[in-house]
């Protein structure tokens, strides 16, 4: 079956430890770059994972497939809210962190075994803004974008 994949890469002037923490257990930090959203999990292989919005609603959930702190995280991601996106099923999201000179390379790969995929299209609108905000927040201490999921 055809596969849809999106890859997002950012070079961030930070440490793998800080970046890992920003992507996992530092909930308050996460809310600052993820437009109020945070993810809840124990961040260990097999533990559940969910994406919680400011109003408490959960749009996406799944489980942690692999967790190698400061290096690699694989999430079995599934949309839970919109029926047609939910029907597309699981979509693995792989997050890789590696040192690159004075910076840290963050790669996020989101894949689904179908093409086209509405889920991938939906997340592709969000990831560049989230990653860009995360980079800005880690490097300068300020997030650039504040409007939650503006469509334009």
């Amino acid at each position, binding site marked *: 079956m055809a*596969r*849809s*994949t*999106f*890859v*997002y*890469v*950012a*070079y961030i*002037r930070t440490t793998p430890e800080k970046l890992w923490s920003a992507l996992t257990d530092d909930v308050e930090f996460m809310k600052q770059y993820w437009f109020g959203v945070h993810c809840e999990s124990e961040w260990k292989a097999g533990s559940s994972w969910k994406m919680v919005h400011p109003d408490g609603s959960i749009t996406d959930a799944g489980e942690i497939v692999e967790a190698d702190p400061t290096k690699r995280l694989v999430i079995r991601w599934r949309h839970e809210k919109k029926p047609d996106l939910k029907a597309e099923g699981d979509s693995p999201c792989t997050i890789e962190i590696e040192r690159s000179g*004075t910076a840290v390379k963050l*790669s996020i*790969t989101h894949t689904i075994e179908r093409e086209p995929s509405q889920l991938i299209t939906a997340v*592709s609108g969000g990831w*560049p*803004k989230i*990653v*860009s905000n995360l*980079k*800005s927040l880690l490097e300068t201490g300020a997030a*650039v*974008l504040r409007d939650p999921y503006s469509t334009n």
Partner: protein
Amino acid sequence: MAELHDIDVLFKALADPTRRKLLDLLHAHDGRTLSDLCEHLDMTRQGVTQHLNLLEMANLVASVRRGREKLHFLNPVPLQEIYERWIAKFEKPRLKALGDLKRRLERTNG
């Protein structure tokens, strides 16, 4: 200065029609091999490789090894950064001007 360097490389990468075409090709269909991309360009394989290298240096293209193949993906993150740095902030005054105009017109009508 490092930031300046990043943005220089980024704009240099965008300032070439072949490289912009490569980005359009990847936007239409992501995850392509070099051979696949060469089919759409009237250029030697080496030429396309050089353009792809520059796009990778600018972080506009990310490559992923899958078995023996090297797949190229469009990375939209730097474009988002251009949007924030060079577009959003210039849009804001215009939106404010429109808002002010609306308020003024509505006040006149009332």
